[in-house]
């Protein structure tokens, strides 16, 4: 893989390890308010200090610990939402594109359009509001919206790839449908899916933040980067660091996923291998 891809992979690995080892790494409990001197002005009171290197949030909780714990939520939401929706999208897109006919008319002509015509965030809000806010329901809601994008992408790719001579060749050899799809079509169709998935990770992290802001994400006091960012908005002028650290965490994650996506794309393409 190329250098940026490796860097991205390292960043993601670090975040994953941080997420896993959060209880060991975090200096404080992310939910506990630390005693502060309430006589100090807010800007000074919340400033980073030696014992709280990322500062304190508006409720006096340690931002470093919350960023560390926040990695757990973001990673879990990003990975599960993208895995679930990409998998559903891959299966449905492949079936729809490969078989065509009424199957394709049902999926691509009807189902895709139904899902695409919903305002996606509104659908997620409605679902979470109906099912109740929890991490599981959040993931479910985001996956239900997310799969269509992957399915459309995969279907389009499959429609293109299935016309290649090597697919006809395999058919002439007597290959079964499953073999045609899995061995010949999908390996040549998933490249854009990988890029889409890396962007999807970023999108999922951001959607999680939006829903958390509306109180439909992970319920407080569980820390998530999105919720922290939204909490920090009101203190932008007095305590910008509240925005800086979770913002940096989101940015690094999104960037790293993009690097890995690009790196994978190159790596998966034998033509670019030396």
């Amino acid at each position, binding site marked *: 893989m190329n250098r940026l891809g490796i860097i991205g992979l390292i960043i993601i690995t670090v975040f994953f390890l941080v997420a896993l080892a959060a209880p060991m790494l975090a200096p404080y409990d992310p939910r506990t308010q630390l005693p502060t001197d309430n006589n100090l002005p807010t800007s000074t009171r919340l400033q980073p200090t030696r014992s709280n290197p990322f500062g304190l949030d508006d409720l006096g909780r340690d931002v470093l610990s919350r960023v560390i714990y926040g990695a757990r939520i973001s990673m879990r939401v990003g990975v599960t939402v993208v895995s679930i929706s990409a998998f559903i999208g891959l299966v449905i897109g492949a079936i729809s594109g490969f078989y065509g006919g009424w199957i394709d008319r049902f999926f691509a002509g009807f189902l895709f359009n139904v899902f695409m015509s919903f305002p996606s965030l509104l659908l997620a809000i409605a679902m979470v509001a109906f099912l109740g806010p929890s991490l599981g329901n959040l993931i479910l809601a985001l996956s239900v919206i997310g799969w269509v994008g992957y399915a459309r992408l995969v279907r389009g790719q499959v429609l293109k790839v299935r016309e290649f001579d*090597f697919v006809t060749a395999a058919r002439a050899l007597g290959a079964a449908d499953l073999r045609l799809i899995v061995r010949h079509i999908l390996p040549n169709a998933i490249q854009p899916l990988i890029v889409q998935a890396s962007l999807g990770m970023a999108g999922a992290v951001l959607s999680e933040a939006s829903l958390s802001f509306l109180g439909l994400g992970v319920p407080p006091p569980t820390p998530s980067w999105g919720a922290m960012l939204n909490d920090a908005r009101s203190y932008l002028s007095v305590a910008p660091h509240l925005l800086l650290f979770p913002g940096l965490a989101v940015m690094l994650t999104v960037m790293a996923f993009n690097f890995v996506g690009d790196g994978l794309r190159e790596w998966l393409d034998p033509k670019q291998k030396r």
Partner: protein
Amino acid sequence: MGQSELIEIRDLTKHFPASRGAVVRAVDGVTFSIRRGETLGLVGESGCGKTTIGRCLLRLIEPTSGAISFDNRDLLALGRGELRRLRRRMQIIFQDPYSSLNPRMKVGAIIGEPLSIHESLTRQQRRDRVAELLTLVGLAPDYANRYPHEFSGGQRQRIGIARAIALKPDFIVADEPVSALDVSVQAQIVNLMQDLQSQFGLTYLFISHGLAVVEHISTRVGVMYLGKLVELAPAAEIYSNPLHPYTQALLAASPAPDPDAARAQKAARVRLAGDAPTPLNPPSGCRFHTRCPAAIEACRKEEPPLVEVSPGHWAACLLHPAGVESPAATVRSSNNT
């Protein structure tokens, strides 16, 4: 049904649906047979239906109507499972050596795939067979570990041929196998195909858009125009005594290697004006009448049947009438002798 016929197609028709209920008459009532061990060259310009015939013969496309028999079995009546088993006896070689090999599979896996579909071999056995096949088509056995993009067009075509012969088929549709290659490489590939033919007793349907390419390899040559077979004759006969004006025009269009002959050819050249009409709405009567230099009034109305003008030489042209036997009937009687 004759012993010597491996494939017989009768009145084969393939109409593709086009927009607004229109149909493209890609193949419109074609009848011919392919004898065991021969190479039947099938020639015509693009869009004449030659590729569609090749695909129908392998049931990669389902014909609209007509009959195809392979080794005395009704190919169109086979169920999925039977068809899959029969596939090992008939294979295809493609025109484009780039799109015909899966770029994500190593050469060994590509050539080994027919073996893993139809035969249960151990890994080692399969590797040995692949090495054997690579040697057979003139490539080094250790190429098995490389990817297709590492090879030239000619080498890729050899890989495609190795895949096609892996199961020792009886019949191979070669769909313009050399059209995408350099002239020097074309000869090598044609020679390789001939070597393999004599070694394994293969039967070829060799599709091409020019008569020059098939001259060398074909036993008999069929010429197609707009979904119809217009002439069918032994190769030597087609080149020395073309009957159909379209065949004559095709021959005139192929370059002659000898400059004197080229000059003579130029003088006597039958030139075709314009493009072929669309198979969406083919001309009435003889489909070639719109471009035919020798067309007479009757050509507009009357569709000429394919008739045997002289023994073994069939043509569908009103200017060359003959006995009204159907090709299948003659084929049969010639076998009985």
